[in-house]
C-alpha cells in the first residue's frame, strides 16, 4: 500500500468533515446567492434543503453499497462525485443548475461519509499495529478491527463530522466575503481529491482481493428513538443557525464576514460542550440536557429584546453547548452495540439530514410569510414616524418620495432606508432633525426584521422540545 496509516486516517477524517460541513457551509452565502441568482428566499433555501434531503435519502443505501462494493471503492467514487459536483456548483449560473449539482454532491457525499465509517475501525487498528511493528500491507475487514477500535472509529467519525459542521458556516462566510460564494464549492473539489488519493490504495486492494463481499453481515434494525430524536434536534439546530444567519445578514445588514464572526460563537460553545460532555452523566442525561439547552437558546433568539448582535451571544452559547451534548449522546446511543457500523452510521446521517431538511421546509414558509407581514408593518410604522416627524414639510415630502422608491426597489425584503437620506441637509438644524428621523425609521425596521424571525425561532424551539419525547421514552424502552 502506498499511503502511510496516519496520513490515511487524517484523509478519512478530512473527507467526513468536508462532506458534513457541506450541509451548513453555504448558509452564509445564501443571501449573496439570493441576490446574484435573482431568486426568492424560498428558492434559495433549496440550495440547503436539496443537499440535506438527498443525503437523508441516500445515506443508508450508500452504506449498503459501500458494504457490497467495498468501502474503499465506495469512498473513492463518492469523493470523486462530490468533487465533480462541487465544480458544477461553483460554475452554476442558474439556481436550478446549482440545486441539481447539490443533489449530485449529496449522493457522492453520502457514499463517502458512510464508507469512511466502515474504513475507520480497520484504519485505527492498523495505526495501533503500525506503532508496534512495521506494516507492509493490511487487510480490510473485521478481523483487524475490534469492539474497541469500532468505538474509537465512531468517536473519530463523529468528531470529524461535528468539527466540519461547526466550522462550515464560518469558512463559508469568509470565502463568500473575501472571494465569492462560488469559491466555497470550487475549493471543495481539490480537497476532496486530496482526501481521496489515500483511499484509492484501499480501493485497489479491494478490487484485487474481493475480500469485502465475503464479509457482508446481517443488518440489525436501527435505533428508532435515538434517530428520531436526532432528526428533531437537528431540525431545531438548523433553525437556529439558518435563521440567525438570515437575521444577521438580511435583517440587521451585517456583511457575510461579520455574520461569520458572530455565528462562530456557536461552534466555540460546542467545543466547550464537548469538554463538558466528556465528564458529565450518561447518554440519556446528556441528550436531555443538550436538547433543553438548544430549546432555551432558541427561546432566547425568539425573544430578543433589541436588534443588537451581543444579545445573540447568550442564546448561541446555549445552542452550541446543547448541540455538542445532544448530538454526541444520541449518535453514540444510535450506534452502541449495532452492527454493521456503516449502516447504522448511515441511519444517523439520514436522521440528521432529514431533520435539517424538514426543519427548513417547515420553517421557510413561516418566516417568509412573517417577513412579508413585518415588512408591511414596518412600512406603516415608518410612514407614521415620517408623518409625525418635526422636519420641514418640503424635506419630509422629498424623503417620502425617496423612501417610497427604495421600498419599490427592495421588493419582498425588509427595506434598507439609509441611502434614502443621502445627501444630508447642509443646515445643521435640519441635518440633526433628519438624522433623528433616520434613527427612528431604522429602529422601526430593526424591530420589524427582528420580530419577523421570532415565530420561526419559536417553532425551532418547539421542534427541540419534541426531541425530548423520544429521549424521555428511551428511559423506559430499551432499543
Amino acid at each position, binding site marked *: 500500500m502506498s499511503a502511510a496509516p496516519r496520513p490515511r486516517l487524517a484523509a478519512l477524517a478530512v473527507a467526513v468533515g468536508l462532506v458534513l460541513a457541506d450541509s451548513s457551509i453555504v448558509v452564509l452565502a445564501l443571501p449573496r446567492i439570493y441576490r446574484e441568482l435573482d431568486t426568492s428566499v424560498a428558492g434559495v433555501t433549496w440550495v440547503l434543503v436539496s443537499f440535506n434531503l438527498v443525503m437523508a435519502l441516500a445515506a443508508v443505501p450508500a452504506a449498503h453499497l459501500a458494504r457490497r462494493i467495498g468501502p474503499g471503492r465506495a469512498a473513492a467514487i463518492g469523493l470523486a462525485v462530490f468533487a465533480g459536483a462541487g465544480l458544477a456548483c461553483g460554475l452554476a449560473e442558474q439556481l436550478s443548475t446549482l440545486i441539481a449539482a447539490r443533489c449530485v454532491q449529496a449522493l457522492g457525499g453520502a457514499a463517502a461519509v458512510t464508507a469512511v465509517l466502515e474504513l475507520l475501525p480497520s484504519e485505527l487498528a492498523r495505526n495501533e499495529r503500525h506503532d508496534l511493528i512495521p506494516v507492509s500491507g493490511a487487510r480490510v475487514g473485521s478481523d483487524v478491527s475490534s469492539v474497541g477500535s469500532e468505538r474509537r472509529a465512531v468517536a473519530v467519525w463523529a468528531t470529524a463530522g461535528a468539527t466540519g459542521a461547526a466550522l462550515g458556516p464560518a469558512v463559508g462566510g469568509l470565502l463568500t466575503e473575501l472571494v465569492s460564494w462560488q469559491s466555497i464549492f470550487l475549493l471543495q473539489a481539490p480537497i476532496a481529491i486530496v482526501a481521496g488519493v489515500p483511499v484509492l490504495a484501499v480501493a485497489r486492494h479491494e478490487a484485487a482481493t474481493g475480500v469485502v463481499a465475503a464479509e457482508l453481515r446481517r443488518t440489525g434494525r436501527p435505533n428508532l428513538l435515538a434517530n428520531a430524536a436526532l432528526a428533531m434536534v437537528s431540525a431545531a439546530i438548523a433553525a437556529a443557525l439558518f435563521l440567525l444567519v438570515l437575521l444577521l445578514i438580511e435583517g440587521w445588514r451585517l456583511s457575510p464576514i461579520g455574520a461569520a464572526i458572530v455565528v462562530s460563537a456557536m461552534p466555540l460553545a460546542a467545543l466547550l460542550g464537548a469538554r463538558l460532555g466528556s*465528564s*458529565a*452523566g*450518561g447518554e*440519556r*442525561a*446528556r441528550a*436531555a*440536557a*443538550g436538547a*433543553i*439547552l438548544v*430549546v*432555551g*437558546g432558541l*427561546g*432566547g433568539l*425568539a*425573544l*430578543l*429584546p*433589541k*436588534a443588537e448582535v451581543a*444579545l445573540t451571544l*447568550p*442564546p448561541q452559547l*446555549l445552542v452550541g453547548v*446543547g448541540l455538542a*451534548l445532544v448530538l454526541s449522546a444520541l449518535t453514540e446511543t444510535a450506534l452502541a452495540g449495532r452492527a454493521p457500523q456503516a449502516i447504522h452510521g448511515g441511519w444517523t446521517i439520514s436522521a440528521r439530514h432529514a431533520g435539517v431538511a424538514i426543519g427548513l421546509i417547515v420553517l421557510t414558509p413561516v418566516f417568509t410569510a412573517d417577513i412579508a407581514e*413585518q415588512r408591511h*408593518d*414596518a*412600512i*406603516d*410604522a415608518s*410612514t*407614521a*414616524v415620517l*408623518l*409625525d416627524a*418635526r422636519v420641514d*414639510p*418640503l424635506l*419630509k*415630502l422629498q424623503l*417620502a*418620495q425617496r423612501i*417610497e422608491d427604495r421600498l419599490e426597489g427592495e421588493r419582498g425584503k425588509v427595506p434598507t432606508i439609509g441611502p434614502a437620506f443621502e445627501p444630508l441637509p447642509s443646515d445643521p438644524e435640519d441635518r440633526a432633525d433628519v438624522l433623528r428621523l433616520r434613527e427612528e425609521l431604522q429602529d*422601526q425596521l430593526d*424591530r*420589524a426584521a*427582528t*420580530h419577523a424571525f421570532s415565530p420561526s425561532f419559536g417553532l425551532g424551539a418547539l421542534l427541540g422540545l419534541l426531541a425530548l419525547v423520544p429521549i424521555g421514552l428511551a428511559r423506559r424502552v430499551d432499543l
Partner: protein
Amino acid sequence: MNGGSRGTFLVVAAIAVSLALVGAYLAAGGSSYEPAKTQDPCKPRPWRNPEGLAQIAEQFSLSALDGAACQLGVSREALARALATPAARERFTKRYGIDDTELARAVRAGLLRAVDDAERAGALSPLLAGPLRATLRRIPIEQAIELINDARSLLNNLQTFLGPAGGLIEEFLP
C-alpha cells in the same frame, strides 16, 4: 458525585440556565420588541402647538388624512402612501375596492374633521370654522379628486389643499 447524580445535575442545570435566559429576555421586553402599531384614525389625535401657517397646514393635512382614512376604514399611513403618486393611488383603490367618488367623499369628510380638530386645538377661530365647513361641503367632487391627486399639496400647501377655502383660512388664522 456518581454518574446518575451528575446526569440529574446536568439536566437541572440546563433547565435553570434556559429558564434564566428566557426570563431575562422577557423582562427586558423581548415579547414586545416589534414595530409601533398604527393608531386608529377614527380616534382623535392631539395637535402639537403649531407655529405659523406651514405647521398649521401640516397638522390640518394630518387631521384630514385621519378623517378620510377613518371614513374609508384604512390606516392613515396607507392613505398617505396612496396619495403620494397617481400610480400608488391606483394600486390603493384597486386593492381596497374603492372608486374615485368614494375616495373624494372620504377626503371631503377628512377636511371637515380637520376643521373640527383645528378649532378644538385653537388653531382656527370659531368665527371662521362655520363658513369654512360650509365652503368645504360645497367643494365639487372633481375638485376633491384634483386635490388628492397632488399629494405634495395635500401635505404641504394648505391653500392648494383647500382650494377656495385656503384663502379664507389665511385671513382668519389666529
